[in-house]
């Protein structure tokens, strides 16, 4: 059978893959995009960022309505129509998936639906509904994404033990939900179910939820979660799970004592692993690193000169916007440009209640690496805007290089932190100093002022706090 020839083949149509395909097409390349899911958009759009944020927004109204009563506006008790909620969420995914498809059509990017498999360094076999198709390409970009890790011990073949993928389908509102893993996925989905009325218990093996995030940024989240959730158990492990009728019997270890508990559903959110099985990587020169992700350099090139890899398949921070940035770097590298991922600032946002967002150097990282820094903080309790929003549970902090006063990192916990962090990204990328930020007028009253005031507090002159002077 005659293979289809193309300049660039992109495997996977998530935010990495479709960005790469579109950018390459915009740069005049002939591109084929291979995707096994009939709805484009990958993990992010189908089972990740988008559905989770839709549900977080929808269910946050519950909390808002409850909080509103004490401000003098009482909505009574809201009712949930799960079917309608699911349909609304699905409508967003369909709309976005359709949007990507039409953007591809406009760029004349050919989409082949089916599962791809590398035959050799320059040939992809795709299993489509119409049989096998072969694609002969000059360069390929692997953007196959990742899937939730399900440890064997928890894999009971019982639908009540869910990963994030199933949990976002919202099968029902369990009375008791156990979340195994207090990372951002567990905390976000736990927040959704807690808002819908589930008794949520979070188990975390490590001493803190959101491990790796600066402790002062985690604190407001932990405090709110302790109220919203039934319990957060740190330093706790799951020893065993078993089906027990319509429930799951979970054996956990607390203070070295085993304890049995019953839950209607369990969410396992202990990490994600790359979709590299049965990809035919062994037929190429691309190799995996010791964690099982594809190894590639700062220009996204794998060990195979014809193959690039981007996004979750490479490991590191599994974030859609990182995949999109890598997509552009990969395409530019193919075109002979000098683009590199080196020193690119990738912000991170956790959509908990309140949100946490950070970029650049964190206090934790500075401590680990022995980098001397100064930290300027502005608590939201001193922000007029935060009080009018009834959300004083926040903190804005700047990580500053002492000699140059340059801003190396920004961390924010608080309502809308995800929207606020981009100013921090710009500051870090531009090499802005605390003075630059302090001297840029921020509108009042807004939450963005907290960035300016944090910078002012570095100089001991923040208007709305009394700073400790050195």
């Amino acid at each position: 059978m005659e293979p289809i020839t193309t300049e660039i083949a992109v495997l996977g149509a998530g935010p990495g893959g479709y960005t790469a395909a579109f950018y390459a097409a915009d740069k005049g390349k002939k591109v084929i995009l291979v995707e096994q899911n009939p709805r484009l958009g990958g993990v992010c759009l189908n089972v990740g960022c988008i559905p989770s944020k839709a549900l977080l927004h929808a269910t946050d109204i519950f909390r808002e309505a409850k909080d509103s009563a004490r401000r003098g506006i009482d909505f009574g008790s809201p009712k949930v129509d799960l079917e309608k909620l699911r349909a609304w969420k699905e409508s967003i995914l369909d709309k976005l998936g359709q949007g990507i498809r039409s953007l591809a059509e406009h760029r004349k990017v050919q989409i082949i639906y089916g599962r791809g498999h590398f035959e050799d360094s320059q040939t992809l076999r795709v299993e489509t509904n119409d049989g096998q198709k072969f694609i002969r390409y000059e360069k390929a970009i692997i953007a196959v994404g990742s899937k939730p890790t399900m440890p064997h011990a928890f894999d009971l073949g019982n639908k009540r033990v869910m990963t994030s993928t199933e949990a976002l389908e919202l099968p029902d509102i369990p009375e008791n939900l156990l979340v195994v893993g207090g990372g951002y996925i567990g905390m976000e989905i736990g927040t959704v179910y807690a808002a819908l009325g589930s008794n949520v218990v979070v188990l975390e093996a490590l001493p803190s939820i959101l491990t790796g995030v600066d402790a002062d940024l985690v604190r407001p989240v932990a405090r709110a979660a302790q109220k919203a959730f039934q319990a957060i158990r740190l330093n706790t492990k799951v020893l065993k799970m078993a089906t027990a009728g319509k429930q799951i019997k979970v054996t956990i270890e607390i203070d070295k004592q085993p304890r049995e508990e019953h839950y209607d559903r369990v969410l396992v959110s202990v990490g994600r692993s790359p979709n590299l099985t049965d990809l035919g990587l062994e037929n190429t020169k691309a190799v995996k690193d010791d964690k099982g992700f594809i190894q590639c350099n700062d220009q996204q090139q794998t060990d195979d000169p014809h193959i690039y890899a981007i996004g979750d398949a490479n490991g590191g921070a599994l974030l859609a916007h990182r995949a999109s940035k890598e997509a552009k770097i990969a395409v530019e590298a193919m075109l002979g440009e000098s683009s590199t991922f080196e020193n690119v600032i990738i912000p991170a946002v956790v959509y908990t209640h309140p949100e946490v967002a950070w970029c650049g150097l964190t206090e934790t990282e500075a401590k680990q690496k022995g980098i001397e820094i100064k930290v300027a903080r502005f608590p939201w309790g001193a922000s007029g805007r935060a009080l009018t929003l009834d959300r004083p549970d926040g903190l804005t902090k700047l990580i500053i290089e002492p000699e140059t006063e340059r801003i190396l990192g920004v961390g924010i916990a608080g309502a809308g932190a995800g929207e606020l962090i981009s100013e921090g990204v710009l500051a870090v990328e531009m090499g802005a100093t605390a003075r630059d930020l302090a001297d840029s007028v921020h509108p009042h009253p807004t939450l963005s002022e907290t960035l300016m005031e944090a910078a002012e507090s570095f100089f001991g002159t923040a208007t709305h706090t009394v700073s400790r002077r050195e």
Partner: protein
Amino acid sequence: MDVKLPQLAEGVEGGTVVGILVGEGQEIKKDQPFMELETQKAVGSIPAPVSGVVTKIYVKQGAEVMVGQPLIAIDTGAAKAALSPLKSAERAPASVRTDASSSAAQMEPVPSGALNEFRYESKSGIPPPAAPSIRKIARDLDIDLNRVKGSEAGGRITLADLRAYIQRLQQLALERIPAARTLAPSTPPVTASTDQVDFAKWGPIRREKMSPLRRTVSRRMIESWTTVPKINQFGDADITALMALRKKYAATYQKKGAHLTLTAILLSVLGRALKKHPRANASIDGSGLEIVFKDYYHIGVAVDTEGGLIVPIVRDVDKKNLLQLSQELQATVEKTRQRKISVEELQGGTFTISNQGSIGSGHFTPIIYAPQVAILGVGQGQAKPVAIDSKIAVRMMLPLCLAYDHRVLDGADAVRFLKDIIAGLEGFGEAEIKLK
């Protein structure tokens, strides 16, 4: 802090290190000389700008250095702690730390020519601050931003900083072309047409590095030769009477510790002649649109030294009597021969005398010392048969040549000026020689 070669004088771009007067780890006081430098036409010492401890000497004896280049590093912080020498030695390597004083030093603009000195250092190990767009340009051009000094707050590198860095690279690259090797980047190459001829093809050769002095002379000559439209005006002065007077008073001057020389007399004569012919004492403004007339009369006297030609200045010749001029000339020449003359003492001349009489020259055509507009070439006075009132007489005749810039002086001006010089010599009165 790094001590860089300061701007020693206008137009002096660098020199050769002939002596290093301090050692690493040694304490140094403000204004204490730490290095001797041969710059163009003088050997001078460079004083320390601050007190402290010398932590590093960047240059070696014999090295050529340029203005702005770091010569030594002085740890000023160590000065206070330098009571115990051991302690100061311990602290010495710490000068690279970015404490308050040295980070202030980092903010100074990078002088041209100093490329290797800068290296971005951050304790955090984070690369230098620059916008993504600037980093992209640097990557595309394969420029290491760690070597580019940022001018903005926190050391942020702007497009202008990157541009300046690249321009300096280019400039330095041009300067390194051997045929064009000169201290002044903007002047034409010293050897215009003799690029890389293999002289050894025709016989044994010997190469000698041109000294900074030789290079300066070479550059100045090309400048003058290629930019000044020059005319040579010849003349002879009958100095028979003058020589008699000189013989009569030589011993008197000797007692005052002065040689009564023809050059000293010429200084006196020229003081008057230049006053009468101000255009010969003028210069063309750098813009080329104005003539600058100078109400001072500083005459350069070409001195033949071991190192080559040097032209020190005798100032205000119109205000000094012959004894003063003789004494000053003698002292200046002596100082010049010993290479103790400062760069400042070589600057500001308005006219030049090149007297080759002592080595037996006849007429010759000197090159104008731009931006001056005229020079007087003086040969050896010789007894010659001269017709006076239709009778042949033997007279002592002095060969003179006035070379002048035709942009400023016309032929008639020059002739009148030279005739006044000759008249000044021929009619030099005893009253002026006689000591009161």
